[in-house]
């Protein structure tokens, strides 16, 4: 909406904000935000990360870098974020309590902030039993709530949990997760209240396939006035097929897929396309719910669909999120780098020849 978006100054923290980041600006401006989850590579090649991020470009306001999702080992969220900030993306760094204790986590927060990370999502994380290395030690020194509070203290009071001073406090926009679709249902809104007290400024929900259930949850949130204290992004994602949906229902606790949705997929000729359509419809529906500030797209292994889904849902209403435009002068830089690399390679081969 704001034509001046591209010339915004990201070196300052605007009044009323706690971060320099783009995501916070979009939300506070009142725009409907879109974030998406990046599939972390099993590779040390930075290009894998950029390849993953590319389909989101121009369609999302933030990219979540997961921290060992499902307790499986992948490239770290800090590493992914470091790469993404180099290009100018707005990563949301996920931190779980599963693998690191409070000393490691606080250090990571400072490191991430120094690399330009503006958004951190605080999670408890899955149990190690769920992943590919069930023999690992589950740490869980903090839980998501005390993690939120720890980072809030670092930001607002400029000190570590121990009380020791931080010379330059990290400027961060703090997030958390919610799951309105798991029992105990009466506790869930109160738990969000608790998270807000602990420091959550935005939340991303678990996959929403049951819009009426989300509505019921949101009406309680609005009654409690929590939507005014926290931006709520609803988690959505395309189901690849009815079979995949059944598998999720049977194997992933905390996700609820209504029978009607599965039946609809089952009856479709092209299940993948139907899954995409359902997803776009859900986005359109949740957009109408009072208190919802955006959506969070988790299109695991279907990342290429994100642009299409966002387009189909029409929630951006013509707004264009950030996109890396080729800058004038980029070409010269690339050529200079190639030249440098060529010289270096030559030196290395000469060195080898000299030795042998």
């Amino acid at each position, binding site marked *: 909406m704001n034509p001046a978006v591209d010339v915004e100054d990201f070196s300052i923290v605007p009044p009323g904000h706690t971060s320099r980041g783009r995501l916070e600006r979009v939300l506070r401006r009142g725009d409907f935000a879109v974030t998406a989850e990046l599939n972390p590579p099993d590779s040390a090649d930075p290009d894998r990360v950029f390849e993953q991020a590319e389909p989101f470009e121009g369609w999302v306001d933030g990219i979540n870098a997961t921290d060992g999702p499902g307790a499986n080992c992948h490239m770290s969220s800090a590493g992914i974020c470091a790469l993404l900030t180099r290009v100018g993306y707005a990563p949301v760094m996920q931190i779980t309590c599963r693998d690191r204790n409070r000393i490691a986590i606080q250090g990571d927060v400072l490191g991430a902030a120094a690399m330009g990370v503006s958004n951190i999502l605080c999670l408890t994380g*899955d149990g190690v039993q769920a992943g590919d290395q069930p023999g690992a030690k589950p740490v869980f020194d903090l*839980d*998501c709530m*005390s993690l939120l509070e720890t980072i809030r203290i670092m930001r607002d009071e400029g000190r570590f949990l121990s009380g020791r001073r931080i010379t330059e406090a990290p400027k961060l926009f703090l997030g958390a997760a919610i799951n309105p679709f798991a029992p*105990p249902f009466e506790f869930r809104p109160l738990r969000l209240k608790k998270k807000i007290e*602990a420091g959550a400024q935005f939340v991303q929900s678990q996959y929403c396939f049951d819009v009426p259930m989300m509505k019921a949850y949101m009406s309680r949130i609005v009654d409690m006035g929590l939507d005014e204290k926290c931006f709520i992004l609803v988690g959505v994602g395309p189901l690849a097929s009815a079979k995949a949906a059944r598998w999720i229902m049977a194997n992933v606790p*905390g996700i609820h897929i209504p029978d009607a949705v599965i039946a609809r997929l089952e009856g479709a000729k092209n299940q993948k396309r139907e899954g995409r359509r359902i997803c776009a419809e859900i986005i359109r529906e949740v957009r109408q719910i009072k208190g919802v500030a955006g959506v969070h797209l988790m299109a695991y292994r279907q990342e290429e669909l994100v642009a299409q889904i966002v387009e189909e849902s029409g929630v951006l209403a013509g707004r264009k999120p950030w996109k890396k435009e080729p800058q004038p002068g980029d070409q010269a830089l690339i050529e200079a780098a190639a030249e440098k690399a060529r010289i270096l390679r030559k030196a290395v081969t000469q060195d080898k020849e000299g030795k042998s």
Partner: protein
Amino acid sequence: MIFARHKTRSRMAYKPAGASPVQRASMRYSLRRWSVEHARFLEKIYTLFADMLLALHWLWSLIGYRRIERPMLFLERNIKGLMFDCRMCGQCILSQTGMSCPMNCPKALRNGPCGGVRAGGNCEIETDMPCVWTEAWRGAQQMQGGDSILAVQKPVDQSLKNTSAWLRATAQRAAQNAVKAGIKA
């Protein structure tokens, strides 16, 4: 035939106690559940008991809190172990968690349930165990001070593990009372 072979092999194979899901399923969590069921009653008993410990502060100081720590630890571990499957974190918050010990949560959550609670209210990881937080919520409903489940809990101080929470709480309250008395005087 295959079945018979399987049978003999399973008799031979050594399985450490509690590592088998079948064995775990046979554990009923019955006392733990009873405690949550009677959270209201236990809350009262607990308050009385805490007051009693406080009233005996002179005795503990006389013997020395350090010297009394070991016998007290023994009592606490066995009583709370039996009633709540207590893990002796040393900073008891049972009265704020509906009398359901949060340290039994495989993720050691002290601030409410994770997003993985199963539809029937069981834990996502230990599928046979009722989630400690669905239990906590149930217990807190009955308790007079049940609302304290909404307080944000600080991170656990791991250095207090395997120390007596009862004694610590008593000493703290005694110190607070002393300060209050000091202010009044």
